[in-house]
């Protein structure tokens, strides 16, 4: 028999993990990122340099005209920024999820401690956000150095990129959380999801340059919406208000669905 006092003590002990559980999970994820900190630092500085110099500056020499009101560099920079966020999110929403369930089933251990499935998902999402922010921030600084951001509003691009990455990441997580056996699904996400998205989302040219049968990829791609938002902020690309609303609402809806779906899947798997 537990006395009322003991009972109160037990309830009190549960209140902290109830309130802060998500943050504990996020802390765990961020700590484990230290294992590849070196890689993170090098890619965070190396990628913007290579892409902006290679595609922004080099390729620009072949594209003679301005696109809209922007130089080619100004045109691609917001797209590369959003893509960088998507790349990070795609990585952080695949391997750690499969790891937690299968290779190193830490999710079960967390769940055996007083952390719920939903808290695990929230913690992962939080960690992905924390991981994206410096990468995107450094990228933006390089954009400034390359003179690729004409408007002060362009700084919004950091938030827009994280928002875009999160939308794609959550959608991926909704899928990866259902994977029971690794049969190379993650490579497929990369090669049939992320890569075509990168290529057909108006990153290097306006999607209107593509024939109609390829344009739809842009329309359904959160990356295209994010890229367009970034351009709106960076150099005042003129778009109707309703379209801007779509650019915000669509990735938001996808992300919300992904979050809800992931939390449901993870909870079911842990309590099965």
């Amino acid at each position: 028999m537990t006395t009322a006092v003991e009972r109160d003590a037990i309830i009190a002990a549960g209140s902290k993990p109830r309130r802060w559980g998500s943050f504990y999970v996020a802390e765990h994820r961020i700590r484990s990122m230290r294992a590849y900190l070196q890689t993170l630092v090098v890619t965070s500085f190396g990628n913007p340099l290579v892409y902006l110099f290679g595609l922004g500056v080099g390729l620009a020499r072949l594209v003679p005209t301005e696109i809209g009101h922007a130089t080619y560099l100004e045109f691609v920079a917001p797209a590369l920024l959003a893509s960088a966020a998507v790349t990070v999110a795609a990585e952080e929403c695949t391997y750690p999820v499969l790891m937690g369930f299968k290779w190193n089933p830490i999710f079960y251990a967390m769940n055996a401690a007083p952390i719920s499935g939903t808290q695990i998902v929230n913690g992962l999402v939080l960690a992905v956000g924390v991981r994206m922010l410096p990468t995107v921030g450094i990228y933006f600084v390089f954009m400034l150095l390359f003179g690729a951001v004409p408007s002060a509003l362009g700084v919004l691009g950091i938030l827009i990129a994280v928002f875009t990455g999160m939308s794609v990441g959550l959608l991926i997580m909704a899928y990866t959380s259902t994977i029971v056996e690794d049969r190379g699904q993650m490579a497929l996400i990369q090669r049939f999801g992320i890569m075509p998205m990168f290529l057909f989302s108006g990153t290097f040219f306006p999607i209107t340059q593509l024939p109609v049968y390829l344009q739809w990829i842009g329309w359904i791609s959160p990356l295209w919406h994010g890229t367009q938002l970034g351009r709106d902020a960076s150099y005042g690309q003129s778009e109707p208000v309703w379209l801007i609303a779509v650019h915000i609402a669509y990735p938001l809806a996808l992300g919300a669905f992904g979050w809800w779906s992931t939390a449901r899947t993870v909870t079911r798997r842990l309590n099965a």
Partner: protein
Amino acid sequence: MTTTPAAPSTFTPPSRGRLLGSIYAGNSRAVLGRGLLATRTSNYWIILSGFFEPVFYLLSLGIGLGSLIHGVTTTTGQVVSYQAYIAPALLAVSAMNGAIYDSTWNVFFKMNYAKLYEGMLATSIGPFDVALGEIAFALLRGLLYAIGFMVVMQVFGLNLAWTALLALPAVLLIAFGFASLGMAVTSYMKTFQQMDWINFVMLPMFIFSATFYPITVYPQAIQYIIEVLPLWHGVELVRGLTTGSLSWGLLWHVLYFAVMITIGLIFTTKRLKALFLN
């Protein structure tokens, strides 16, 4: 009831070429055969994805960006459409990517996690058999991708001369070079973090090696650096063949890869021997 097999052995161990001593048993076919058999259990979509990668690039950049760019001047002064400019580069890049993927990540996994080579080298097979067999498998797959992409190029009218057919052996040469060197480099890697360094080298090489625009947009000093990198030689070689602008200079690229293959094979075999037979 189970019977214990007591069959007397009726085979004799294969005789080895003395040239390579204890590192080669002349049986790399068995390693290649193992690779082919293993594809049966792999995910076919992943195998197919290797074909789609350059096609996606061609559709996106070739069509989308190609409509903004009117003609590019190649090294030999020929002016070709943007599609015809990047297609051979994409072919060379996919040869590189396939070879590097097979010889680095795949080999790293087999070496350190699946313990595959340890098992192979406990038999009469030698490290040179392993290296040759694994590379041969990578090349076979690379050849299939290359043929697929050549067909796509033909459909889009991007093979500008009959010499484009020679791009197939050229692609094999490029893949051989990257695979042998990739395997050698991988044998020094201990952790996944170190493996990331391979990507750090690959990405800039991919972007800067005259893949999407001529290197003449850069100052002379940077051009020299690019010209040292293997991918630039691969791109120039394949582009020369598909656009039909032949010159004796193409032979330099062939020589470059011949040297790369030799160095790669020597190092790979040495390392496999040091890792598994010491």
